[in-house]
């Protein structure tokens, strides 16, 4: 079933009776070429690109819950390529280019909206860091513009420009950044993978990984044994536990990151705005709700909920930066579980066990990475060589200390990311 304007019109006139399910719900087969553990954004994108770019279609994606029920349905939907360090820079640049063609590629409306990401600075040091970052973004082939305070005021007149502690001095505008509809991204990739023959198997939890003589043979699941030539982890938040099934210990702690949505409002916020102070980021969804978040809670957690001190901090930051929102009511908040690595950057690599691959450690930024991660991971699984845009996402960097990507400059230590 292809989507088109004509089809929408026709269904609208005939009671919308012609729509079919977007993917099959197959029984697991006894054996696959590739089994992907995790049916979130990264797992589904990996299956899609394996089928599309590498012609491997005998694939199962195993999801313990339902598709799109994990972190891909639990984030602040921001898409951007304004990274600074080599390794991250080329990867997120690649990912943003894939985002830009994603809806046409998938024939699916992911509500990709390049409304611009504006990073606000409040002092000279932050301005210098923004200039440097902006130059890095331009050097990687993407867009960045330094705005002075009037440039920011023109775009977002309701911000608190005269905050005593954190006056706004200007911002770095990344026009190609924006937001996308998180669920639709998962559904689009799921449908695209299914159409190419990939089996999407829900309610199927992996309980064991079979390894024989240092080579992976398949997985044990709640729906029986599934043999596989290659097994690929994509279980964000639970990567440590899934890797433990294969006897691996990863440089990962799982932490909770909270996000918030206000009641639906008329359009007030035209960009994604991130404040350097207090690390607040905020945007307005197409439905009208303000979507915002701040820091991690910074302690290990597998509870998909946070704690009140960070709620208070986030609300304080929000009101300090955007006082006009003081009367908006908060509709809900939620917490997602992140794989936190010591340097805050991801891992796409071989595991050391033949046929077992790792895609983990996306920390606080997995959503924007989905197409790039899927493409790069598929390349690694199909060819056993890293994709050109993801050569630095090595597992070994923590042991050797070479090529750490500490984007925040806070130090490569677990409790700092």
């Amino acid at each position, binding site marked *: 079933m292809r989507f088109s304007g004509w089809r929408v019109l026709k269904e609208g006139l005939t009671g919308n009776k012609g729509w079919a399910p977007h993917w099959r719900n197959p029984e697991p087969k006894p054996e696959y070429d590739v089994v992907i553990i995790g049916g979130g954004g990264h797992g589904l994108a990996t299956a899609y690109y394996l089928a599309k770019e590498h012609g491997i279609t005998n694939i199962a994606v195993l999801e313990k819950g339902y598709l799109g029920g994990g972190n891909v349905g639990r984030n602040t939907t921001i898409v951007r390529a304004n990274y600074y360090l080599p390794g991250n820079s080329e990867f997120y640049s690649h990912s943003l280019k894939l985002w830009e063609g994603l809806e046409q590629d998938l024939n699916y409306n992911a509500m990709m909206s390049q409304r611009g990401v504006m990073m606000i600075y409040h002092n000279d040091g932050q301005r210098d860091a923004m200039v440097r970052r902006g130059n890095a973004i331009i050097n990687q082939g993407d867009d960045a513009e330094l705005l002075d305070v009037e440039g920011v005021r023109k775009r977002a007149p309701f911000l608190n420009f005269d905050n005593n502690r954190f006056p706004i001095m200007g911002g770095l505008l990344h026009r190609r950044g924006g937001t996308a509809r998180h669920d639709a991204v998962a559904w689009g990739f799921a449908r695209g993978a299914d159409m190419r023959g990939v089996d999407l198997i829900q309610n199927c939890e992996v309980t064991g990984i079979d390894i024989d003589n240092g080579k992976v043979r398949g997985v044990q699941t709640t729906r029986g044994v599934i043999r596989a030539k290659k097994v690929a982890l994509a279980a964000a938040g639970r990567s440590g*536990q899934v890797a*433990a099934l294969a006897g691996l210990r*990863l440089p990962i702690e799982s932490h909770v990151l909270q996000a918030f949505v206000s009641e639906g409002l008329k359009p007030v916020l035209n960009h994604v705005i991130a404040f350097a102070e207090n690390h607040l980021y905020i945007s307005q969804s197409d439905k009208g709700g303000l979507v915002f978040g701040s820091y991690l809670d*910074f*302690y290990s957690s597998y509870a998909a909920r946070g704690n009140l001190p960070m709620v208070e901090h986030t609300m304080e930051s929000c009101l300090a930066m955007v006082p006009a929102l003081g009367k908006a009511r908060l509709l809900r908040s939620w917490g997602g579980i992140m794989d936190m690595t010591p340097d805050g950057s991801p891992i796409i690599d071989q595991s050391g066990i033949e046929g077992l691959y790792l895609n983990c450690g996306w920390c606080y930024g997995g959503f924007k990475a989905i197409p790039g991660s899927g493409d790069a991971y598929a390349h690694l699984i199909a060819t056993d060589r890293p994709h050109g845009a993801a050569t630095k996402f090595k597992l070994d960097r923590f042991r050797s200390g070479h090529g750490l990507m500490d984007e925040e400059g806070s130090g490569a230590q*677990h409790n700092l990311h």
Partner: protein
Amino acid sequence: MRINCPNCGERDRREFYVKGAALARPAADATLEAWHDHVNLRDNPAGELHELWYHEMGCGAWIDVCRNVVSHAVLSTALASAADLGGAR
């Protein structure tokens, strides 16, 4: 979340700084692998976990907090100085 400081009693989470898993420190001349394991690798269990918390806005003690990371329940606390995490000296 409230943490029972052995010196000060039960206090708000905001008085504390969290360091992460409470791990026995390897000897200074331990192998690279042992140090890599200590600094980077984690068991990351979904259940009980011993962590180091620092009573930053209180008595300044390092505390070994045993916490259930699924329910956030604090199960026990003890002074870290008694937990023998210092490694071979």
